[in-house]
């Protein structure tokens, strides 16, 4: 695409990825995405803010060249070094031979690992400024949004916030500006859920940092540029990053997958024990729910117990799938427990327990396992197990 003017002297010089449907292997991108890059001209100096993905290096340089001779770029600002914005960096630096790379301190190590060449970047610290002549870039550190090296770049005179992935979305529309395109709230929310949600605390810190800044335009690296209703998008981030109110009662969720009903009976007995010990509980059949819709509940619960039977020496896929769906929520120190009935070997719950430890769950109890049909004594033991889980909360 051709460069697009945002205001005189500031251009979008990014790439449209209309065909993309899955981003980073893990994320849906029903509407494609864009890799936004921005060229900022001052009276004396020129800065390029963020680049593009390696696969689009050539397309990107084709868009950039009509806007500027790359050799005339003085600063290459990298707000974060994730490869979808830094993959083309080596190609850019080959032609932008006079450009000084600007990154944060953690960015320095990442830059070296991306370029595998000796680059001496300028390190941007909180509040540092670069004067381009009549235009001043100010750097605002925003660690873990969503990479450790993340910063925002604020253009003081024009009141434009170059926000990296923050306030972005996987949404591709060549009209670029949010006031020219249909409502894309769904993509905006999904992007938050997958990318920003694991870092809610840092989202809140960043929102506080930018609260007092006048902002006329937000230029993220994916999706539409915001120049209308900016406050609404920021308010949505406030709302989504807020900590849910602490529930009055403690809660443990019991998930299970059961082929002959034995693990299911254990699940209900553990659930009774949890309830008898005074905590809230929900017992959930993993074959009957979409766990992606339960992430808020899991995050709010003090603990989860996962039950599986063992088939051919492994836990069932539903249980693995549950544990693979939790990367966007905070698990550290959440109580984890596993259980299950089995025919003769019973490795399933043991393997799940190891996986939960790897995910930083606290797993104080050994897995509760029963061979085949739980007897009354086994069910009683399951109830006691549920009670012990509550006392370990």
């Amino acid at each position, binding site marked *: 695409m051709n460069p697009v003017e945002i205001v005189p002297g500031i251009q979008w010089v990014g790439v449209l990825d209309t065909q993309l449907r899955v981003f980073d292997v893990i994320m849906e991108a029903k509407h494609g995405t864009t890799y936004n890059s921005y060229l900022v001209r001052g009276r004396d100096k020129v800065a390029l803010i963020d680049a593009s993905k390696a696969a689009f290096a050539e397309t990107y340089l084709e868009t950039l060249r009509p806007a500027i001779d790359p050799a005339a770029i003085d600063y290459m600002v990298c707000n974060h070094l994730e490869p979808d914005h830094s993959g083309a960096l080596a190609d850019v630096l080959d032609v932008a031979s006079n450009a000084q790379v600007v990154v944060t*301190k*953690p960015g*320095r*190590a990442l830059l070296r690992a991306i370029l595998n060449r000796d680059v001496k970047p300028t390190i941007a610290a909180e509040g540092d400024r670069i004067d381009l002549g009549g235009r001043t870039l100010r750097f605002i550190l925003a*660690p*873990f949004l969503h990479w*450790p*090296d993340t910063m925002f770049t604020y253009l003081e005179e024009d009141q434009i916030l170059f926000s990296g992935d923050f306030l972005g979305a996987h949404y591709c529309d060549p009209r670029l500006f949010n006031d020219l395109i249909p409502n894309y709230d769904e993509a905006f929310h999904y992007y938050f859920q997958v990318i920003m949600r694991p870092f809610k605390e840092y989202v809140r810190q960043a929102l506080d940092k930018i609260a007092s800044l006048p902002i006329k335009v937000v230029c993220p690296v994916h999706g539409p540029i915001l120049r209308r209703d900016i406050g609404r998008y920021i308010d949505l981030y406030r709302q989504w990053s807020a900590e849910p109110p602490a529930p009055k009662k403690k809660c443990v969720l019991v998930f299970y997958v059961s082929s002959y009903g034995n693990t299911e009976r254990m699940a209900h007995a553990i659930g009774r024990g949890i309830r008898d010990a005074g905590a809230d509980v929900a017992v959930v059949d993993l074959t009957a729910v979409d766990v992606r819709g339960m992430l808020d509940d899991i995050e709010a619960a003090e603990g989860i117990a996962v039950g599986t039977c063992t088939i051919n020496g492994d836990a069932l896929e539903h249980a693995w799938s549950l544990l693979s769906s939790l990367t966007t929520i905070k698990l550290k120190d959440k109580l984890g427990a596993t259980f299950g009935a089995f025919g003769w070997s019973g490795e399933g719950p043991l393997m799940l327990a190891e996986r939960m430890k790897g995910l930083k769950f606290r797993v104080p109890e050994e897995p509760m396992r029963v061979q085949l049909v739980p007897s009354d004594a086994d069910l009683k033991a399951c109830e006691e197990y549920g009670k012990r889980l509550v006392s370990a909360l």
Partner: protein
Amino acid sequence: MLNVPSQQTRGSHSQGASMEKYECTMCEYTYDPAKGDPGRGIPPGTSFDDLPNNWTCPKCNAGKNMFTAVEE
């Protein structure tokens, strides 16, 4: 003779164990041997070198190799 460091020079509490601080290059968490990482069973007085190889940054989980010595 094999050049193996003796127990006396390797023990975490032994004389001469480095009390040098190390900083995570990703999140700037500082590991201070005087404090250790008691939350994960690392007692005070454990030098950075003596941390287990699978020890990770308590703040961001970056590996031990992402740390650099703090110049003081």
